C-alpha cells in the first residue's frame, strides 16, 4: 500500500487544473490532470499533497479519481494556502504528490450494508468511498447516506446528493441542515440527532463517518448506543501534515502517523491510541 510511484516521494508532479466548480460559497472542486492522464492512482480515502508551488502545500483527501481522466479535490477555504488556491483559474499548473495513507478498507466491507455519515466538508473523503460502492454496486448491500451542513448553501455535491445518488439501486440519502431556512423543506437538526432518529440497525452494517471533531464525537456515541461494535465503525482523521510519508513527525497520534498508518482507522484501533483525535 505504501508504495511510491516516483523516485523522490517529496517531489510533486506538475498537473493542470482542467476544471473548477463551486460546491458552496467556500468549497471548490478542482479537477486536475497530468499529460498522461492522472499523475497516480488513488484508492478511496487516500490523501495527496496539493501544491500551489510558489505559495504552499496542503494535504487533502482525493474526493474522486475518474479512471485515467482526472483527480478531483473538494477544498474548503480555511487559511492562507486555500485562499490562494481558490483564486486560481482553469489552466493553472499546480503540483500534486502522493498517494498517501491507507485509504478505506473497501475489500473488507464487501458484502456489507454501508452507512455513511458526514458533516460539512467531511463528505469529501467519504464521497470517494460512496462513489466506489456505486461503481462496484454488486459488491455492497444497502447504502445509506446521512449528510448535514450548517445551511443549504454549505451542502457539497448537491447534484449527486439530490439527483444522482437517490436514484441508485437500494440507496437512501438523508440530508439535514442545522437551522431552518426559507425554501428548505427537508430535515432540520444536527447530524448525530438525525442519526438517532433514523436509528439504522447495526446488523451486517459498516458505518463510515467524517466531519468536524465535535460531530464525530457525538456520532460515535450514538452508534455505540445503537449497538454498533468498535469494528463496525470507521473514520478518517485529520492532522497537520507536511511530508505525507511518516518522516516529518507532526501528524502522530501515539506511535501512529496519520499520513502513513492512517488516515482511516476503525474505532477499535482508535481506542488503542491516546485521545488526541
Amino acid at each position, binding site marked *: 500500500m505504501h508504495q511510491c510511484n516516483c523516485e*523522490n*516521494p517529496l517531489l510533486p508532479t506538475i498537473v493542470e487544473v482542467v476544471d473548477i466548480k463551486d460546491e458552496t460559497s467556500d468549497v471548490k472542486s478542482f479537477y486536475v490532470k497530468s499529460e498522461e492522464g492522472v499523475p497516480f492512482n488513488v484508492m478511496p480515502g487516500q490523501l495527496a499533497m496539493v501544491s500551489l508551488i*510558489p505559495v504552499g502545500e496542503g494535504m487533502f483527501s482525493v474526493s474522486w479519481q475518474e479512471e485515467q481522466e482526472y483527480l478531483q479535490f473538494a477544498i474548503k477555504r480555511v487559511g492562507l494556502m486555500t485562499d490562494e488556491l481558490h483564486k486560481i483559474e482553469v489552466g493553472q*499548473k499546480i503540483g500534486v504528490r502522493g498517494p498517501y495513507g491507507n485509504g478505506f478498507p473497501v475489500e473488507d466491507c464487501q458484502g456489507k450494508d454501508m452507512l455513511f455519515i458526514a458533516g460539512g466538508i467531511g463528505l469529501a473523503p467519504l464521497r470517494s468511498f460512496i462513489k466506489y460502492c456505486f461503481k462496484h454496486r454488486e459488491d455492497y448491500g444497502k447504502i445509506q447516506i446521512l449528510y448535514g451542513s450548517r445551511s443549504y448553501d454549505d451542502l457539497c455535491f448537491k447534484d449527486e446528493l439530490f439527483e444522482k445518488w437517490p436514484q441508485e439501486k437500494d440507496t437512501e440519502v438523508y440530508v439535514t441542515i442545522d437551522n431552518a431556512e426559507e425554501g428548505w423543506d427537508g430535515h432540520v437538526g444536527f447530524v448525530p440527532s438525525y442519526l438517532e432518529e433514523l436509528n439504522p440497525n447495526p446488523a451486517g452494517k459498516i458505518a463510515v463517518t467524517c466531519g468536524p471533531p465535535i460531530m464525530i464525537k457525538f456520532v460515535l456515541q450514538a452508534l455505540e448506543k445503537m449497538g454498533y461494535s468498535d469494528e463496525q465503525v470507521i473514520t478518517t482523521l*485529520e492532522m497537520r501534515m507536511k511530508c505525507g510519508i511518516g*518522516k*516529518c513527525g507532526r*501528524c*502522530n497520534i501515539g*506511535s501512529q502517523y496519520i499520513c502513513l498508518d492512517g488516515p482511516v482507522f476503525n474505532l477499535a484501533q482508535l481506542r488503542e491510541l491516546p485521545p488526541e483525535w
Partner: protein
Amino acid sequence: MQILNKNKLKAALNKLAETADVFVPAARGENSGFYSWKTFDQEKDELMLEALNVYLPPKNVLFPQTERMYSFQEEGSGVVIKESFEDSSPTVIFGARACDVAAIDCFDDVFLTRGYEDTFYKSRRDNTTIIANACYQPGPNCFCASMGVNPTDPATADIIIRDTGEDYVWEARTEKGTALTQKIADLLENKEVKIPELQAFSKNVEYDGVAAKLKGMFEHPIWDKLSEACQTCGICTYVCPSCYCFDIQVKSFGEEGYRFRCYDSCMYREYSQMAGGHNPREDAKERFRNRFLHKLEFFQERYGKPLCVGCGRCIVACPAGISITEIIKEIKEA
C-alpha cells in the same frame, strides 16, 4: 593493531579533507559543535576531541538545519520543477561519540525504512563515512549506557578510533571505513597499545519497563507537574542528536524560488496547528507530553528502541532545568 599518533592527527585530517568535507568536533566562539575542517580557523577554533559532549550534535551534517529540496520557475500559468538538490558530495564525520552514532541509527530508521526512503537524507547518508571516537571516561551528563548504547563500540560506525593518550587506535569496520583508511595509510603505524577501560557513569537511569508503563500514563497528573517549568522554547529539540522533526516551506522571489525544509520543534504551537483552527496539542503540557512519550514510548513501539541516546545535551541546554533522566525516574516512581 593500527594506530594514529596524535601528532599526525592534523595531517590525517588534511589528507581526508582533500577528497571529502570533514566535520570535526570543535569549539568556535561561545559555541561548540561539528564544523567543517575547511572552515576551521587554526588560530581561533579549538578541536574538541575530548569533550563530552560538544554543545551541538553532528546531525546537521546528514540533516542540515535548512536544506533546499527543489527549485522551480513560473511561466505564466505554468510552472516547472527545475532541479532537485540531492547532495552526494563525499563527507566524513570525524570523532562522533557512540551516542551520536546511535542517533544516526535512529535517523536511518526514520528516513530509510517504513515504506519510503527520504532521498535527500539517503543521498547524504550514502556518501558519509562515520569515524567514531570510543568513550572510556563518561562525562557528567552522559547516560548512554542506560539507554542501550555501548559507549566503547558504536555498532554502525565505519571506523572506530580509541584514545590511548598518545595515540588513537584506528579500526576500520566497514568497506567505506577501509576505503577511507587507505587514504591515510602512510600516516598509520602498527603497534600494540593498551586499550583503556571504561570508567563508571556518574549518571544512570533505569529505562527498562518505562515504555510499557507509559502506555497507561497518558492521562496521568504527573504531566502537569513535569511540564510546569517548560517554556516551550524548543532548545531541547534543537540540540538533540535524535530529534528529526522538520517543516517544509517555500521561498519565492519573482517568478522563481525553491522549496526547502528546516528543523521544526514539537514544542511549538504551530507544529500541529491546523488551518481550520483545531490544534490537538494546544497546551504546553500536551506538547511536552508528546515529546517525552515520543522519545520513551512511541519510538520504542514503532522502531524497537528509545529515541533518546543519553547524550545529556538537553539537560545542559534547558533554561528551565528540565532533565530527561529525572523525568524517567519520576515515571518509574509514579
